[in-house]
């Protein structure tokens, strides 16, 4: 059973502020969706390996040499929150 406190808790973990109205709507909608998700618990997967990718992937290595990448200027061009060549974030402490 999904209730409003669960929706608020998970939204908090996901760093999303929700309005009271959003909480109400999502609570109603999630009940349906999560009982639908529960259907997959009935499938027998004993001894089945999970597929994190559809095809087998292998580690790819390259020599540890410096390659060109974005310049500091390019990296900072899409934000106004910067100072002295660094990104500027909200207060940390």
């Amino acid at each position, binding site marked *: 059973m999904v209730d409003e406190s*669960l*929706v608020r808790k*998970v*939204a*908090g*973990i*996901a*760093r*999303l*502020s*929700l309005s009271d109205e*959003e909480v109400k*709507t*999502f609570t109603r*909608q*999630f009940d*349906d*969706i*999560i009982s*639908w*998700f529960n*259907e*997959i*618990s009935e*499938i027998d*997967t004993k001894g*089945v*390996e*999970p*597929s*994190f*990718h*559809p*095809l087998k*992937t292998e580690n*790819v290595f*390259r020599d540890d040499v410096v390659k060109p990448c*974005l310049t500091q200027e*390019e*990296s900072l*061009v*899409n*934000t*106004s*929150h910067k100072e002295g060549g660094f*990104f*500027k*974030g*909200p*207060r*940390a402490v």
Partner: protein
Amino acid sequence: MIASDFVRDVKAGKIKLEKFYSDFFNDLRKLDKSYDCFINICEEDAFKQLENLPKGKLYGLPVSVKDAICTKGIPTTGGSKMLESYKPTFDATVIKRIKASGGVIVGKTCMDEFGLGGFSTNCAFKIPKNPNDVNRVTGGSSGGAGVVTRALDSPHIGIAESTGGSITCPAAFCGVYGLTPTYGRVSRYGLLDYASSLDKIGVMAKSVSDISLMISVIAGLDSNDLTSRPEPVPDYSKSVSVKGMTIGVPKEYFGEGVSKDVSDSVWRSIKKLESQGVSVKEVSLKMTKHSLPAYYLVAMSEVSTNLAKLCGMRYGLELPLNKDDGFNEYFSRVRALGFGPEAKRRIILGTYARMSGYRSQYYLQAMKVRTLIINDFKRALKGVDALVAPSMPVVAPRFDEVSKLTPLENYKMDVLTVAPNLAGVPHLSVPCGEVRGLPVGLQLIGDYLEEKKLLDLGGAL
């Protein structure tokens, strides 16, 4: 005119690109006015590209790009307010390859926010309209690409992207060809991620020949995408006779919920292949009914982590930094403002499915079900060259019909497309007739890296 003929004529000097493109952009703006298919039309950048165009396979050809793919200096929004102001400082690998072959990027097409939708009605900017009937949806999430491909008279190829059916659905609803390649066949570098283990960049076009041309340009290993496939790219252009091939018809794809008109159209095409010497055999994909919840669990889990990077720092939507705000308060406010309701819904559900205490029950179990779905396809594809099924269970619905659906009913529309996407097998949607003036699509589903067979079969229809 097919794209390769156009390129040949441009190279021969029979078509002058300056003149061609001044008419072209007039048509494109008209098209956009009628159907709301572009987030950005890049006329200025296109003319800049013409000044120094490599004489490659796509020389002079107009290419539209789903707005989920990064284009240097051209806004790339992902259909979201979160990235309204974002101008990438680099080109995605596919864009680099298209430009190096002489393709001209003409615009960025409309889409559901970050690909989260099946109808292209979950758009932060414009909602595209179906050119066959403007009261109907285009399908999603690559809706804009479907519209442009269908409605533009001029030669053109569209670059689209699929996570759970976002190429097949608009291809079927708009009436064009749409290839979703094998997972990893085309580099994802520079794609705004939705679900990294599911995302595939692909092609929408008016003919199989156009699809073959474009996939031969964009496919292949890329050191910037560690999941891209190392196998050599075959020659897709030489078509082979389909005589002697075998196709499998999965009975579960013609079951409950699939409209009779749609399955009749698909069967007429199957008969057409049969008359050309193709054998037909019934097969079974037993996991079909389980594929929807498994897909949504995987997709939502992955999108909730991929969208975590959008938080008002480095790029994208930002707010003033208040003195009293900590990281969490600031991030939460930006994300509340920037994401639409479907993005929020999937972020919360995906976070829930990955939470400690629920992870094995939902996320891990879905990944195991995915293994069973992959095995299902391997079994069904044994001894056949491809599977044939309807692309979508119905023809394009009206906007008022879509607006009445609950989120869960909405997700269930993807019943025929999520399984091949979860398995990562290639599939091609092919127009196969009309029902009351609306296009129907069938999908050919093949084994890993067997795009060529799909193109041969699609070309025979």
